């Protein structure tokens, strides 16, 4: 599959802007460094030429931005969607969170996005520039004139190594060729944790969640978290403005955050990508997805518009919570 370049996307966006199909473009804008790319709205060709970027760091899932960006606009907004973003796109349409008529979705192929912490672990601190145009990433640091070469297998984000689909499930137009749904090993890590003893699992999560600083980035970036008023913004919760007193006190937030998106989470991995403390939050979501698949049949949120999620459905023959454990014990 060919690598999509910035110019291809700018040409496409400019053409659609000039023929009036869309009135603005949701794209990526370069930040202070090559790796901090921020989503931005562009309205003219000149702006695109000036600021638009596309690199291996353009991992942001744009579906959530459509909820706010499609309000108060004239005409349609152009959005570039990677295969995993299209699942969130469908899921949000299922929940009537934005108007499909106001969006012009262009599917772009994706070979996986980079994880800056992995890059940094190899190149060291002080990254001056990153060139992602070739097959290998070239990272130049302040302390070395020779760029460091990093192969995709070493810089790809965890969610991209275990990519579940290269197939676009929603688009108006596609750049490049569509891929297929992949039979990935994404539940292996969840299964490994399940095989541990409860004490080991507790120790694992205590270690991970103790790093949480409650910045709420996972909630803010999650395409499934689109409530206008969030239950965690409750000033009467008793934990407002208090620092945790032990290592595991943010667990309520994490369990409920994962629970609120259970059955709606498309496993796009944004929560883990944005976490400044590198907590593997996607494992909580995947645990719910794995459970739903095991208990109530295979279900991929966002595969089609209008599907009924497992938690808003039932059959009279469902498993009792106790039977769930019995079954797991006999499997083990």
């Amino acid at each position, binding site marked *: 599959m060919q690598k999509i370049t910035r110019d291809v996307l700018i040409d496409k966006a400019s053409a659609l802007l000039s023929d009036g199909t869309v009135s603005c473009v949701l794209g990526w804008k370069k930040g202070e460094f090559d790796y901090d790319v921020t989503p931005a709205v562009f309205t003219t060709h000149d702006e695109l030429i000036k600021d638009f970027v596309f690199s291996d760091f353009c991992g942001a899932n744009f579906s959530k931005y459509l909820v706010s960006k499609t309000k108060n606009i004239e005409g349609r907004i152009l959005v570039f969607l990677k295969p995993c973003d299209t699942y969130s796109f469908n899921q949000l349409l299922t929940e009537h969170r934005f108007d499909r008529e106001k969006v012009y979705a262009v599917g772009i192929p994706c070979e996986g996005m980079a994880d800056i912490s992995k890059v940094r672990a190899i190149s060291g601190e002080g990254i001056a520039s990153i060139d992602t145009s070739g097959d290998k990433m070239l990272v130049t640091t302040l302390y070395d004139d020779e760029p460091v070469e990093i192969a995709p297998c070493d810089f790809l984000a965890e969610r991209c190594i275990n990519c579940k689909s290269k197939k676009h499930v929603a688009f108006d137009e596609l750049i490049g060729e569509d891929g297929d749904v992949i039979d990935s090993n994404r539940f292996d890590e*969840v299964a490994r*944790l*399940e095989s541990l003893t*409860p*004490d*080991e*699992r*507790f*120790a*694992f*999560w*205590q270690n991970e969640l103790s790093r949480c600083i409650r910045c709420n980035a996972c909630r803010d970036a999650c395409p499934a978290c689109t409530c206008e008023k969030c*239950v965690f913004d409750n000033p009467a*919760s*008793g*934990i407002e403005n*208090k620092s*945790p*007193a*032990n290592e*595991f*006190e943010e*667990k*309520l937030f994490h*369990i*409920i955050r*994962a*629970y609120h998106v*259970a059955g709606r989470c498309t496993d796009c991995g944004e929560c883990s990508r944005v976490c400044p403390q590198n907590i593997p939050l996607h494992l*909580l979501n995947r*645990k*719910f997805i794995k*459970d*739903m698949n095991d*208990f*109530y049949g295979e279900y991929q949120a966002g595969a089609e518009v209008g599907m009924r999620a*497992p*938690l*808003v*459905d*039932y*059959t*009279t023959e*469902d*498993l*009792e*919570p*106790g039977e*769930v*454990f019995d079954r797991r014990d006999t499997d083990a």
Partner: protein
Amino acid sequence: MQVNEYKPLIVAFCCNWCSYAGADLAGNNRLSYPADVKIIRVPCSCRVNPMFILRAFQRGADGVIICGCHPGDCHYTSGNYYTRRRMAALFSMLDFLGIERERTRLEWVSAAEGAKFAATMNDFVETVTALGENKRLEDLRCKK
């Protein structure tokens, strides 16, 4: 010498139509169950938001039990079927995080089952007492 015997704090969410009436029947029949059980009446077992359960644990409960009508007998036709799915997912997640699975339970108790209600509560309190204090889910910031 006085011995401080450990008394667990148990929160029981009981549905108005079956389990709460079952608790009433247990009382009418003079069946005893431990006073550590604090019953909270809810209109239907599906009124119990998973947040309620975690909130109870956060504020110092040692065990939480949800009681509802038997499947098929829900006053609102299908509420307890949703409860069953929700709790299966939640309990499985708590187990995934390493929290003792015996601390949470879902039971079906009808209005005619006063004896079952008392027996269930006796058994649950015994189980939780054996586990001891809930340390893994408490939150010192909101504990009184």
